[in-house]
């Protein structure tokens, strides 16, 4: 049985909007609009979509803090809302814009409090905490009250807090939001290392597609509450026909009318001394063998941002 199952999952929010001076009208916002997804044990999946697509709403329903309007959800075999406290023992959650730590307490105290809340045996707790401290460099600020931590430091604390009870599923809602390059990399490589065991299931939302490229084999794209893509990153590239590009620098200008079947000339620059081809159905070699006086070349992989932007606009 799949670890996470969603069947026709819906969430409609009712918002009241002003209509005229005194009248207020009810309007239904379908935040999640019939989502069917399953995630298997050990899967690392990216869950992306434009702002307001319904990502956070889905995660809230999966973690039991928001009641679905209709449809079925199962996580670890449990119904998230009715069995929320039971489920809490099996999942770890980080909502990037929220803190689960205690504002007034040092990280160290928050962690030991979590041990009692989740009733984790002392040795297991100590082992996990030690790993997190090493991988996330927590030692410098273990005794700082959480309110004095920088965003990046706090986020590392949040990740640790979400893992100390050894959850089998980790839900992360924008864990890298607002982090600098170094902190982002620290978080990513930490998660990558966690994923190596093959036992942890991860559902990650983010607006930084580099997170996904680094961590997730599977990519689910949601827009206006509906899933618009579910598959690998390569499948997404294939679907949108994005291809590698070849950029060549030449010692002599590119002849007028130069053409290679299967490669599309996109642009010429620098007095025709530089040309860019899109490799639609052919390979680098086919183009290069036709060129005379080749000085230098580079191959550019298709950019996931471009593909995703196409998808969002569609």
């Amino acid at each position, binding site marked *: 049985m799949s670890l996470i199952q969603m069947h026709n999952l819906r969430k409609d929010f009712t918002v009241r909007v002003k209509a005229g001076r005194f009248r207020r009208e009810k309007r239904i916002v379908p935040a999640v609009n019939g989502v069917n997804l399953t995630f298997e044990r050990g899967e690392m999946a990216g869950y992306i979509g434009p702002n307001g697509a319904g990502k956070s709403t889905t995660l809230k329903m999966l973690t039991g803090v928001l009641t679905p309007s209709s449809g079925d959800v199962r996580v670890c075999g449990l119904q998230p809302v009715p069995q929320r406290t039971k489920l809490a023992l099996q999942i770890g959650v980080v909502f990037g814009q929220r803190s689960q730590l*205690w504002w007034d307490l040092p990280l160290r105290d928050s962690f030991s409090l979590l041990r009692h809340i989740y009733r*984790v045996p002392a040795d297991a707790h100590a082992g996990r905490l030690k790993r997190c401290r090493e991988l996330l460099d927590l030692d410098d600020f273990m005794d700082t009250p959480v309110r004095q931590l920088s965003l990046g430091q706090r986020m590392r604390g949040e990740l640790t807090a979400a893992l100390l009870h050894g959850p089998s599923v980790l839900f992360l809602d924008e864990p890298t939001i607002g982090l600098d390059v170094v902190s982002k990399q620290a978080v990513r490589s930490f998660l990558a290392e966690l994923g190596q065991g093959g036992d942890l299931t991860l559902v990650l939302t983010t607006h930084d597609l580099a997170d996904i490229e680094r961590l997730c084999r599977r990519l689910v794209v949601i827009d206006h509450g509906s899933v618009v893509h579910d598959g690998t990153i390569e499948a997404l590239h294939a679907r949108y026909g994005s291809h590698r590009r070849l950029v060549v620098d030449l010692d002599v200008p590119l002849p007028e009318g130069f053409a290679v079947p299967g490669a599309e000339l996109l642009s010429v620059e620098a007095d025709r001394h530089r040309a860019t081809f899109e490799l639609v159905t052919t390979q680098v070699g086919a183009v290069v063998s036709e060129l005379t006086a080749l000085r230098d070349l580079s191959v550019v992989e298709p950019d996931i941002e471009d593909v995703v932007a196409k998808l969002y606009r569609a």
Partner: protein
Amino acid sequence: MDGLDARVRWISAGGWVRNSVTTFGALSWSGFRRYSTYRQATIAGAFTNTVFGFLRCYVLLAVVAGAGGSAPGGYRPDQLATFVWVGQGLLTVVALWGWTELSDRIRSGDITADLLRPVHPVIGFLAPDLGRAGHAMLFRFLPPLAVGALFFDLYVPGRPCTIPLFALSILFATVGSLAIRYLVNATAYWLHDARGPMTLWTLSSGVLAGLSFPLRFLPDWLAITLWIATPFPGLLQTPLDVLIERDPPPRQLALVALQAVWATSLLVLAVLVQRRAERRLVAHCG
């Protein structure tokens, strides 16, 4: 990544009670710790309570003197002075006013973090609140009382059962107060802003709990109605009456039992309200 991905290990069924107690204790201790990080606020608060203690004490004693020898509400002057000074301390222990943590968290959406824990939210707020009350006993209750004892003639209880009853009474008063504060704050689930109910609570609780004047000053029928039909006297007046031995032992005991009934009912009500709120919960977060 050994350790980290090990599944939650289930604790033995027999250890359930022990574990619950440990969890409750750890949460309470965290409440104590959190309040002990704000030393200056504690000192300033204790100072303010002391100043108001002098004011209230002089006013009440003047009222007694004006009554011309009769004992209003059945209190002797030393009992009244004790009523004021112990009341000044207890005010912070039961935390009648100024607690908006829950409604703030509902409004900001931080309540999601509380809901994601394997602890019922009412317990998650009750346990730390008892820790907070413990902290207040040490640093907000004792200092004003010590000052009051220096300047006024205070009543010393004579019955052996009074002190344990007083301790129990404080416990029930704190639990009852937390439950009411929880209910008042929980209106934020529906109103998005608990300021209205909070103001109403602040205005009424001072009078109805016996802070503004001892409720025994009221006509008997009114006092008895308040006691039985509302939880307010149990928040402040009851522990004070128990300590100054206003009533004979059986009635002392009955008053504390009444507090226990009210505290329990209010907690149950808080659990029900929380459940209702969760069903329609719209968590505000990105």
